[in-house]
């Protein structure tokens, strides 16, 4: 049993595999489990009370940790001393640190190893205590589940099926060992197949495992194992059959599963690059683009968490490999004219840790050695293990060249759902002033394109922002707000981040791209990119044109030196756009002044405009509030509904019973009503209703259900009169009630057995049933009365009966399945 508990813990710990880079952690965990098991075993051998078992396990765990991690500080290598304990706690703190620093999978530094060993050891102690000490194998699954949930919570893609299978099998084995020991204590096993319906449903699996103990129950054991294996297999395979759940079972062709890509923070490195004193060459490239090359993009940051822009963790799988194949087409690019560009890039040897490839957007085919992958949504090209340093590669890319008209045309269309859901989110922490600013800047703009142009103009011209590399990198949302509203000083990061945010506020999907500007041309089609050319810029999405670059950062000597403003992002020339009244202002800037149009167009377009920007940012906030309340409300309603189910079922059953009767008796209801008093007076009764037997049966079933509801016993061997007699003894009935009861029983008896005598009229029976029910209610306690009303046991009994028959059928099926192999063998 101890062994099984240990094995189960170990199997469960297999689920931890995605958290670590190497597999050494397993041996660490194994040692911890073994030491705990040994400690528990020793304590049990010494016949110490059961609650001391975990103490033994924990003691052994501490000794084990000391030996492994603090040997040099301990007395005789294993006796913990204050020094060793201090060392262990230092190590633990270190591990804590490391855990905070790394995303999974983490390298197995000693600190983390210590934490893992301690955690696995504690789980093993708990499992040991529950399963061995307290003989409760089933609850031992809880600590196992807790351990299992760690990787499931940390990793978005969950835990692989193999690890799940191992954990489940371990737990099942633990249950089996427990059941075997239980049964072993009772001697000869009894064939339970005949009485399967008496086996409690929940414990059915375990109960069937019991057979494993004895050779004479071999087939039972086999069926138990089959059921166990089958259940695990179903759990693994079933999700594939369910639409909406995407199992990753067959994604893996050989190695690994999916892996989340972790890299140093791109924004941190941006600042470092920009401020490097040496301004070294990063890469050189040749481009055949006649209009001059586009920016080289490294990252696309799609998520704004309220403080900074980051990218959603990449889920990398082998399918994303470049391997010479075509890269998925850029999203949304359909109508804008495009041109194919071939770029040959050579990255300098000195560049370190460049795991993302600088490529012009949108890459269509990248030829490079090594394991490089592409992220299908953002078209980032990256590697999990290779670096671009010193490599030469060729990129064939599609360069979209949208005209302002294209962008205008795309503005009218709704965004695809995956774009809208991913690139429009604005955190609630964004202050209202920022939203107001965004609305003020784009006030009067008719289309998304126009709003985008206005935003860019605001940053480059109207807002009077100053490019200043000495500003610290923004760390928090407040820094960004400060940049936007007050200081107005920053460098490309602030500009790009702010514009992307404002774009989202006014309802344009946006993300922040990072990479390099084209650099400087050093020869015919030869370009050199230096570290100072590192840059960040916003990309905005327009239907039909896809992701389009904007440039809010001032360029030239007073800004990012090599940045260029795209043609389409410049305000429309007179006559070209829809705003002929806005005359081209100063010729010094690339864009005309906008202040006029702000006042000009305000009147007529105000309404239209309001809707644009407001409808975009407000719904998420509202929705969030609602979505916060909805689960609680729904949960409450659900709980109430569930609680009400038995009651409703009872009422429905009652209705149904009497309804059958009402329909059937309808034709004869008239005469029965006419001569009703006569019937009561025991004269020659009226012709009874069409289906008197049905009425009697209905009344009888009702009576039975009422009796059950009020906790009165009902034996299957009771005949109607016997039942009535017994109820009469159990319940204090007045004369009227007694008579009603007798009438119901008599009617049922006649209907069942006489075959010729017509029983009492249905209406009378119904009234009788009510009388008796009231008598029942009056004679039982208040608790029973309320239970009869709210949780009528009769419906439960019905449900139980249904379940039992289903269980019986399942047992039959399993028996047949059991015989299948034998039959096949015979053949």
């Amino acid at each position, binding site marked *: 049993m101890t062994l099984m508990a240990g094995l189960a813990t170990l199997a469960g710990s297999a689920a931890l595999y995605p958290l670590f880079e190497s597999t050494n952690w397993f041996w660490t965990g194994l040692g911890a489990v073994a030491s705990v098991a040994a400690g528990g075993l020793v304590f049990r051998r010494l016949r110490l009370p059961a609650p001391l078992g975990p103490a033994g396990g924990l003691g052994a765990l501490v000794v084990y940790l000391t030996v492994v991690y603090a040997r040099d500080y301990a007395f005789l290598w294993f006796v913990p001393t204050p020094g060793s304990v201090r060392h262990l706690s230092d190590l633990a703190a270190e591990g804590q640190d490391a855990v905070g620093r790394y995303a999974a999978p983490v390298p197995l530094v000693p600190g983390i190893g210590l934490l893992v060993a301690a955690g696995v050891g504690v789980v093993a102690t708990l499992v040991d205590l529950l399963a061995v000490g307290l003989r409760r194998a089933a609850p031992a699954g809880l600590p196992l589940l807790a351990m299992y949930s760690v990787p499931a919570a940390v990793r978005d893609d969950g835990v692989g099926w193999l690890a799940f299978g191992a954990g489940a099998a371990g737990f099942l084995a633990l249950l089996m060992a427990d059941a075997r020991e239980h049964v072993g204590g009772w001697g000869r096993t009894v064939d339970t197949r005949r009485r399967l319906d008496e086996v409690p449903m929940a414990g059915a699996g375990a109960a069937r495992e019991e057979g494993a103990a004895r050779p004479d129950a071999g087939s039972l054991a086999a069926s138990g194992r089959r059921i166990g294996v089958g259940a695990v297999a179903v759990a693994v395979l079933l999700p594939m059959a369910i639409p909406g759940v995407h199992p990753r079972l067959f994604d893996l062709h050989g190695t690994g599963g999916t892996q989340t890509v972790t890299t140093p923070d791109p924004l941190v490195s941006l600042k470092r690059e920009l401020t490097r004193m040496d301004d070294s060459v990063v890469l050189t490239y040749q481009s055949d683009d006649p209009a001059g090359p586009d920016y080289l993009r490294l990252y696309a940051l799609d998520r704004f968490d309220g403080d900074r822009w980051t990218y959603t963790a990449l889920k990398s799988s082998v399918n994303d490999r470049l391997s010479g194949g075509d890269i998925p087409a850029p999203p949304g690019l359909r109508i804008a004219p495009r041109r194919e560009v071939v770029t040959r890039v050579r990255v300098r040897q000195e560049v370190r840790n460049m795991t993302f490839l600088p490529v012009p957007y949108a890459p269509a085919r990248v030829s490079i050695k090594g394991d490089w992958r592409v992220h299908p949504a953002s078209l980032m090209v990256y590697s999990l293990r290779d670096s671009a340093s010193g490599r030469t590669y060729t990129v064939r890319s599609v360069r979209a060249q949208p005209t302002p008209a294209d962008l205008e045309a795309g503005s009218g269309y709704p965004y695809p759902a995956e774009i809208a859901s991913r690139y429009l989110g604005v955190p609630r922490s964004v202050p209202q002033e920022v939203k107001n600013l965004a609305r003020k800047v784009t006030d009067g703009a008719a289309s998304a394109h126009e709003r985008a142009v206005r935003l860019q103009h605001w940053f480059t011209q109207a807002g009077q922002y100053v490019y200043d590399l000495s500003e610290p990198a923004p760390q928090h949302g407040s820094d960004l707000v400060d940049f936007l509203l007050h200081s107005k000083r920053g460098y490309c990061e602030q500009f790009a981040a702010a514009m992307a945010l404002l774009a989202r506020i006014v309802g344009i999907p946006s993300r922040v791209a990072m990479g390099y500007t084209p650099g400087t041309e050093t020869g015919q089609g030869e370009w050199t990119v230096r570290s100072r050319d590192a840059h960040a810029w916003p990309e905005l999405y327009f239907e039909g044109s896809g992701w389009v670059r904007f440039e809010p950062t001032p360029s030239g000597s007073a800004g990012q030196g090599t940045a260029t403003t795209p043609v389409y992002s410049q305000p429309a020339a007179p006559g070209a756009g829809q705003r002929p009244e806005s005359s081209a202002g100063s010729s010094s800037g690339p864009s005309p002044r906008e202040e006029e149009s702000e006042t000009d167009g305000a009147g007529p377009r105000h309404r239209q405009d309001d809707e644009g920007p407001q409808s975009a940012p407000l719904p998420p906030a509202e929705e969030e509030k609602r979505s916060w309340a909805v689960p609680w409300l729904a949960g409450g309603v659900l709980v109430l509904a569930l609680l009400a189910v038995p009651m409703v079922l009872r009422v429905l059953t009652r209705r149904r019973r009497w309804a059958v009767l009402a329909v059937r008796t309808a034709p004869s209801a008239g005469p029965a009503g006419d001569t009703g008093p006569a*019937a009561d007076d025991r004269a020659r009764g009226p012709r009874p209703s069409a289906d008197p037997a049905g009425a009697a049966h209905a009344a009888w079933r009702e009576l039975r259900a009422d009796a059950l509801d009020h906790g009165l016993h009902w*034996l299957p*061997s009771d005949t109607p*009169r*016997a039942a009535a007699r017994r109820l009469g003894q159990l319940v204090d009935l007045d004369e009227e009630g007694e008579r009603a009861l007798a009438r119901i029983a008599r009617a049922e008896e006649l209907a*069942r*057995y006489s075959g*010729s*005598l017509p029983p009492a009229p249905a209406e009378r029976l119904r009234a009788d049933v009510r009388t008796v029910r009231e008598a029942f209610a009056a004679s039982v306690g208040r608790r029973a009365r309320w239970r009869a009303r709210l949780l009528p046991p009769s419906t439960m009994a019905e449900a139980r009966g249904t379940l039992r028959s289903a269980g019986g059928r399942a047992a039959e099926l399993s028996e047949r399945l059991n015989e299948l192999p034998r039959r096949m063998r015979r053949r």
Partner: protein
Amino acid sequence: MAVGTHGESFMEADPPAPRRPSPSGGDGRPGPGRGLDGLAQVANKIRDAVASVIEGKPEVVRLALTVLLAEGHLLIEDVPGVGKTMLAKALARSVDCSVRRVQFTPDLLPSDITGVSAYNQEMREFEFKPGPVFANIVVGDEINRASPKTQSALLECMEERQVTVDGTTYGLERPFMVIATQNPVEMEGTYPLPEAQRDRFTARISMGYPDPAAELEMLDAHGQASPLDRLSPVANAGDVRDLIEVVRAQHVAQSVRQYAIELVTATRGHPELRLGASPRATLHLVRAARAYAALDDRDYVVPDDVQDLAVPVLAHRLLPTAEAQVERRRPEQVVTELVHRLPVPSPRK
């Protein structure tokens, strides 16, 4: 067993069946012989007559009457002195019919029962002298004292209602009922009835001791003269034949028959029984249930009848296994348990 009394209280409450006038009260005189009401009249009279002799045992009396109406035979088994013979005689005397009494002894011969062919010197031929079985009611006292040979002489009479002597078959009278008594205590010098013989008895009842009040009453009654002497017949053989016809026409619902079959079948597979009840037992059970229902003034049989009769009709036919005997399990207990366990037939939904 309070079924009888309850059955009556039961009837009070419900509206009468429109087909017939109220049977309760008993002052109406529709004349014996026709239909259920006549049956109730006659049966009540017989019952009252017997009950005037056997105090405090209405159930026993009712069972005895049931067996009479079911054309069965009755085995009364009890310790000496509780009124076995008295019951048999009272029943026999209440009905104005031929009654014979046979005291079974070890030296009793089969011909002593069935009759004998004697040579008639005058006629110069063999003449059949009918034995005591040629009567409507035959009271066999201490039947287990006779040899098996003599006991089995009763076999043919009881089942086939005929006697074959010297190749000639003589039919017996109708109604024909054997009331046998036996004493389970004095086992020395007795021959327990073979299974085949027991199976022919419709029911076995035991008298049981009377309660103190009944016993006191009995003392008073027996003080002056034997109450048996005061008993005058209240019905004749023709009445009983009519009653039997009425009983035969009783309605037994399909579900009740099924129930009887299930009950009997359950005894056959019971782990504590070496021998279960025979198909004849089923027959007897349903027949007795008909009579029982008729005595309850019903023209249909309910499972209650079957339940009430299960022990008297079935128990004496069952043989417990050796283990059950060691555990002192009696067939009566087994049957009672079966009755409590078996669900009664109810209409399907």
